[in-house]
């Protein structure tokens, strides 16, 4: 069973890396968001350095949500979803494996790109490390929460915007604790560790809730 799940993870990762631009487009979008912000608020490096972690987090959030709507739709279109049902694997674990594969192909590149983009915003080395660490801990939660939205909209071909609208309210806690942990190293009276631990807890809770809800949604879409 582990082998089959690992195969699903690898297949999802490879498909989203190679198909339709994949990870590359996500990272470019992330870069574009970060580049657009100084045009909106002005090139003041002090200000940008202070709100830099928040910009990186919001950029990563959008980049994660944008790639999500095809997560299960491609599998439904080419029949893989039916095979998952017939394989006898627990559907919850299939959803988890798919989310992990998707994160490896789309979330991890964002985390790797974050330090480079942080330099553009003039973030100091210590906060830059903190942002990268929080993104590493928090983006899996974003992908998992997004997987719920993707599985809910699998039955009808109107993913895109609807997934983002459904999922955004649920990502607010992740954003709050991710940004407050990262900003704590710049300004905050709040220390780094408590929000960071809560962020880890959110990721773990999403790893439990998202597979259950996602599998329920997929089952109801197959009826």
């Amino acid at each position: 069973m582990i082998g089959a799940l690992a195969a699903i993870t690898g297949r999802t990762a490879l498909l989203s890396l190679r198909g339709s631009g994949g990870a590359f487009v996500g990272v470019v979008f992330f870069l574009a968001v970060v580049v657009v912000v100084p045009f909106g608020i002005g090139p003041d490096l002090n200000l940008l350095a202070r709100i830099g972690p928040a910009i990186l987090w919001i950029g990563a959030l959008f980049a994660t949500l944008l790639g999500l709507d095809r997560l299960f739709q491609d599998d439904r279109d080419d029949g893989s979803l039916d095979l998952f049902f017939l394989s006898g694997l627990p559907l919850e674990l299939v959803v988890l494996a798919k989310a992990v594969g998707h994160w490896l192909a789309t979330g991890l590149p964002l985390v790797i790109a974050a330090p480079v983009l942080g330099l553009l915003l003039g973030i100091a080395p210590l906060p830059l490390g903190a942002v990268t660490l929080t993104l590493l801990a928090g983006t899996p939660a974003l992908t998992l929460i997004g997987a719920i939205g993707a599985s809910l909209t699998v039955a009808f071909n109107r993913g895109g915007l609807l997934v983002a609208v459904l999922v955004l309210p649920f990502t607010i806690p992740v954003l709050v604790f991710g940004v407050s942990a990262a900003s704590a190293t710049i300004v905050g009276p709040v220390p780094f560790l408590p929000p960071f631990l809560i962020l880890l807890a959110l990721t773990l809770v999403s790893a439990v809730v998202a597979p259950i809800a996602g599998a329920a949604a997929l089952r109801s879409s197959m009826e």
Partner: protein
Amino acid sequence: MTAAAALQLPKTGRLTKSNAMAFVDLANPTRYLSLSGRFLPFLWAAALVGLAIGLYLAFFVAPADYQQGETVRIMYIHVPSAWLSMFGYSLMAIASLGTLVWRHPLADVAAKSIAPVGAAFTFLALLTGSLWGKPMWGTYWVWDARLTSVLILFLMYLGLIALWRAVDDPGRAARAAAILTLVGAVNLPIIKFSVDWWNTLHQPASVFRLGGPTIDPSMLWPLLVMALAMTLLFLALSVMAMRNEILRRRIRTLQRMAAGLAG
């Protein structure tokens, strides 16, 4: 033909006459329609009488606040609306359990019909809150913990309504919306907690707290009357919306049947 099957649409194909009769004979929702039809006038009467008494108490009997002056009267609309925004979501969550666990057709209808009513009351809470905030805090909006949580709740209501409208098949939409509602119910405390993390201007809870309410009885009574009246109003609107939804689905079924018989 079970009620559950009858409420859903015939999938494909032509319908025979006997089949058609079974579709018209919607056992469970029919009982609901006749029962709620008898019950609804009384519910409306109670809600309107309650609102009349409550508004009279709120505007003419209750004293003005020694600090806030007359603007405190907004509270009698604002606080019940805020309660009902949570109450509506709880009702939807219970109905969603009914959809997923028991496949009860009325639960689908209830969850769908309550969403816009709950969203309207949440909007009312936000609107009255911001009108109250202008004279008190000097601004229509503050990014304070409680306001922000209610705004996120409003977003979740709107997302649910969007999901309902995106799917054509009511049965499928019902299960998707039910899953999302329950995920939301699990997440609401987490969202509330995360939003409280940046703890700001809004005064702490003053009615439901240990050691009894801090609000004066002369203001508490009108508030409780208004809360009861607005709850009745909420229920009356929801029951009416449910009746409309049942009738709307029947019309859809009849139209499909007519199309099937004609073709």
